[in-house]
């Protein structure tokens, strides 16, 4: 599908500059308030300059890209690529909405792929090599990180090219929508299994000691609360804690404050012997 309006077409040098900025510095200015927002803006900045030159248009575009942004770093170039392609077409709104639509699902998918599938396999092998005294251990893990990081490059071009291909179409619709939907569903299913799996060590040690008397005999029986909870709903405590945090976020509490709440919770329940 040939682009009607080729004048915005950005040359590859600028694209690569954008990619490398995202690739190497995305999280340097990470903060609780808007997380990777500034990193993303700095990455896309060369593109915005090329397209909007300067003045209010540029300012507006920059503001747009300073909104909250957070995803798995390896997945970020995919979003950046798509976002750039839409900016090229002066379709700033689509550019924003694809960021918002994809960042959540891809965070879930990317984090899971890395933290539960890829890294543990490497880490177990590397650690057992190292324990055997071999320096191959740290080298293996080092190289695996580079390999993982290397994924950013093809993902960037994938995002850029696929998104470009749809621009003739109704933007934001069709494939973009479908991709977001697939990513959201698969992402949520994975996170749904992931939360109880990662947090499964959060358990209560509480026991009830009950004295049962049948025909004069007094027998002491210890009932573990965790066992009862597990029957009610497996992994109830982790779910409750995530639920609480989610609810606090929806009530517009800042992450730092929620963090303090969780810290307080940890200390109190630990002292009381509840968790």
């Amino acid at each position: 599908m040939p682009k009607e309006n080729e004048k915005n077409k950005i040359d590859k040098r600028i694209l690569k500059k954008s990619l490398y900025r995202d690739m190497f510095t995305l999280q340097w200015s990470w903060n609780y308030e808007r997380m990777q927002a500034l990193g993303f803006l700095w990455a896309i900045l060369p593109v915005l300059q090329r397209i909007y030159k300067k003045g209010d248009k540029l300012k507006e575009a920059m503001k747009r890209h300073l909104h909250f942004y957070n995803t798995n770093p390896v997945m970020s170039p995919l979003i950046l690529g798509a976002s750039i392609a839409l900016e090229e077409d002066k379709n700033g709104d689509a550019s924003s909405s694809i960021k918002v639509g994809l960042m959540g699902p891809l965070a879930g998918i990317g984090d899971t792929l890395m933290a539960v599938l890829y890294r543990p396999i490497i880490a177990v092998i590397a650690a057992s090599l190292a324990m055997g005294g071999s320096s191959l251990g740290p080298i293996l893990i080092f190289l695996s990180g580079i390999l993982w990081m290397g994924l950013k490059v093809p993902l960037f071009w994938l995002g850029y090219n696929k998104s470009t291909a749809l621009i003739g179409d109704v933007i934001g619709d069709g494939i973009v929508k479908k991709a977001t939907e697939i990513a959201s569903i698969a992402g949520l299913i994975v996170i749904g299994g992931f939360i109880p799996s990662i947090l499964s060590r959060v358990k209560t040690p509480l026991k009830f000691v009950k004295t049962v008397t049948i025909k004069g005999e007094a027998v002491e029986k210890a009932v573990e609360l965790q066992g009862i909870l597990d029957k009610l709903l497996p992994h109830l405590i982790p779910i409750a804690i995530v639920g609480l945090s989610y609810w606090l976020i929806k009530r517009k509490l800042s992450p730092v404050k929620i963090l303090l709440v969780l810290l307080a919770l940890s200390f109190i329940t630990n002292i009381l012997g509840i968790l």
Partner: protein
Amino acid sequence: MDGYGILIPIILGIWAYISIIAQLTGLWWAEALISGAITGLVVGDINLGLQIGATLTLMSLGMWTYGGATMPDFNTGSIIGTAIGALAGAQANSLEVGLAVAIPTSILMTQLDVLARASTTGFIHAADKHVENGNLKGVTKMHLLGQIPWGLSRGIPVFLAVWLGAAPVQKVIDWMPQWFMGGMSLAGKILPALGFALLLSQMDMKKYWPFLLIGYILFGYLNMPIMGIALAGIAIAIVYTNIKGGAANA
């Protein structure tokens, strides 16, 4: 041996600074195993570094800073633990000493991580202003300087601990009351919850929450490994969108 000179603490402090920034980049440099090996090399007991690093790496399986959550900082723990452990070299129980330092250190570092993540907010507010004034240089500067609190929050404690040496570090750790260490350790297990909540808040939960439930059922009731859940997620997502798409086009 009772302590190091000034050089080794500086080298390790710089490595601590660099490694966390590389980690932010997406490389895996802030890995306990890598930092342990490097520290071992620097202090002259690479095998100790490998043992401590491997132990900590195994403790971190599956852990990640989901959604920006804080997790125990096994990297810093590994550097300090290896350096302090090596001092005990002669007594041949360097591994025990090293781990006894490394693990509480990893947990205590969560506090500094939170501090660093919070303090960087200043940079983004400054960037807002620069954007308003069309000052692109300023934006760039704010972004690139953003790493400083991150780096210092690791570099300084490493420098100090290694420079001060075994006795003071041990004293600090011993001085912590039991309830404090217990609470910190529990916090380390609980904090990923915030990350997950942040992740969820980025998704269209109103529309898709039943899928979260499905994932939960697969793990909680059917004990499916994450790999299986991921495959199921793909299959279900494709079928779902195919039906919707197909139906909408029909």
